């Protein structure tokens, strides 16, 4: 298997991370723009790395744990780039890129097992999986943004302003970015879940409706709808909403780990 694209991806993400950190420290616009450019290049290289891996193993990215992790990293980077461009805010790149890097490196440094050919589940299944992973990536991004919000809010309330606070986005922008991430996640998980149910309905002879994964997915959906509502209109806006967003992501991680590994019989890595 050709290692060119994984190496290019890792280099681009690493450089992008370094530039985002430097941008956070110095506030130089050119450094931030270069960080964004490198992230874009990393995304392109990552796409080809995923494509190459799937072709090499004759599988789809989400067929195994490592592939799912890499796809998760790619979608996280993509969602972040979208939010960065939409909100014109680069300061949180330094906090998001480490997650992208960890998922990418963990996936691509792991030994490639010989995989059984994936079942021909069709396009609807592919959309179901991809949209679900996109939703989790968007929720992960909101989680990071909520953590930054809480940190910055604490510094502002305690009047202990270091140099960092001046480089971070304003609190309300962090809230809006987090809500944007949750909105992307909600739309993705809603469509993905509907597609999943339709797909199961068609193959009801092979798959059961009684999977704990369905319950926890609906719980995640309900919790994020609640967050979205509370964060925008009520007395919960601010730190309380951010704490709820963090709590919600703990449930997402639970869904990813305990439920997938031990409880679900039809979901493995997503």
């Amino acid at each position: 298997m050709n290692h060119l694209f994984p190496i290019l991806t890792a280099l681009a993400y690493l450089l992008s991370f370094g530039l985002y950190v430097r941008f956070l420290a110095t506030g130089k616009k050119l450094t931030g723009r270069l960080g964004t450019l490198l992230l874009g290049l990393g995304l392109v290289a990552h796409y080809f790395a995923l494509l190459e891996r799937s072709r090499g193993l004759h599988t789809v990215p989400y067929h195994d744990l490592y592939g799912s992790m890499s796809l998760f990293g790619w979608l996280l980077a993509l969602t972040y780039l979208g939010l960065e461009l939409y909100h014109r805010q680069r300061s949180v790149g330094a906090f998001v890129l480490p997650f992208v890097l960890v998922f990418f490196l963990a996936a691509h440094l792991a030994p490639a097992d010989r995989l059984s050919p994936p079942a021909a589940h069709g396009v609807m299944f592919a959309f179901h999986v991809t949209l679900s992973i996109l939703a989790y990536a968007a929720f992960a991004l909101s989680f990071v943004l909520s953590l930054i919000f809480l940190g910055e809010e604490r510094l502002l309330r305690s009047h202990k302003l270091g140099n960092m606070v001046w480089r971070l986005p304003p609190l309300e922008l962090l809230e809006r970015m987090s809500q944007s991430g949750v909105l992307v996640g909600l739309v993705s998980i809603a469509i993905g879940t509907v597609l999943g149910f339709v797909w199961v309905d068609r193959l009801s002879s092979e798959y059961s409706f009684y999977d704990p994964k369905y319950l926890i997915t609906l719980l995640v959906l309900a919790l994020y709808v609640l967050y979205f509502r509370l964060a925008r209109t009520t007395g919960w806006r601010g730190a309380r909403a951010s704490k709820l967003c963090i709590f919600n992501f703990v449930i997402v991680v639970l869904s990813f780990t305990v439920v997938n590994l031990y409880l679900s019989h039809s979901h493995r890595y997503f």
Partner: protein
Amino acid sequence: MEIVLVGLNHRTAPVEVRERVSFTTEQVKRAAEELRARGILEETLVLSTCNRSEVYGVPPESSHECAPGLSTFLSEFHSVRPDILSVSLYHHYDQEAVRHLFRVSAGLDSMLLGEAEILGQVREAYRFAHEHGATGPVLNRLFQGALEVGKRVRTETELGTRPMSVASAGVKLAERIFGKLNERKALVLGAGTISEQVVSQLRDRGIAQLHVMNRSRDRADELAKQFGGKVVGWGEWDAALQSPDVVVSSVSAEEPVLRREIVERAMAARGNRALFLMDLGVPRNIDPNVGELYNVYVYNTDDLSEIVQQNRNARESEVPRAQGIVDEHVTKFLSWQASVELVGLVDALRVKMREERASFIRARMEPMKHLTEADRAHVEKLMDEMLEKLLLGPAERLRGEKELRRKIQNVEALRDLFLSNREKP
């Protein structure tokens, strides 16, 4: 003609002490009157801002002797125990007092290095003291020099080209919470100089809506009209606090005007929308407990010191140039002071020598019986001419030669050399 300065500022005293030693306009007037009536100072000027309370004066006797009396006066005037006050007070005399004032007006001694409003506050303090007859030739000259220093520093150095102030530091902090302020609403409590500065900063950032609340409706109307805002009646807290994102308070009040229960009620009414409160008043206008409320951010003048420090670093490079201007004007003032004192000294010397001459001639001519009255008168005239020549020449040079005046800075030493204490002018 000595100068004394006794005061405290943000470096020497915490806000809890500064707010107790701050002067209202009425107190400034009363303090100046009492200081002169008690004979502690002949000329006096009180400079009272959020960050400093300073009394400048010209004492009848030695400045060192009058300083303890001035400290005691401040302690009694503000009913602050001397032991609390003494640790915060600084005393400067003559050259150091002049240098201190010039640094203050240059913005070199401010919490926010190079801040703009201190010059206005020095100007206002001088105008007030001058109008009430509290100043005399020395303080007039001193404060005119201070205003000149402030103006030069702001026009000739980078320290003044981009004015930064406590107000703008607070506005920048508001941007940390809300981002751009062009869709935000602000309420300004108080319509004084600092409020005007804040409103100006907010308008520069395109604040969407501006409300002004002030005890004096006329002044509020004036400020609102000047910056395109609306006036809210004093004390209508529920209505006033419902919409603003930023509240700036700089009113002269003994007790906090924004109490916890008022803000608590407002936060409930506004659904906990974030509220940034900038308390620029001394004494503080906002109950410190308000900062404990959810989504409420309260910053008083001391809290802004973090921002001050950061800005200070960026402006440090301009300090030597500003200091050069201060030094130049300190020398200029001391030279003027020396010339005034030297002319006085020469006059005193002339009087003394005339007296000496009379008794000297009497004593020396007593044995010279052969001299006629006309001869004696002639000798006296010759001696007068010589004395005039000796004194008149230097006196004229002192009046005309600036450099010479600069060189002779320790007039006191000359006075001590030629005149006894009894004979000092």
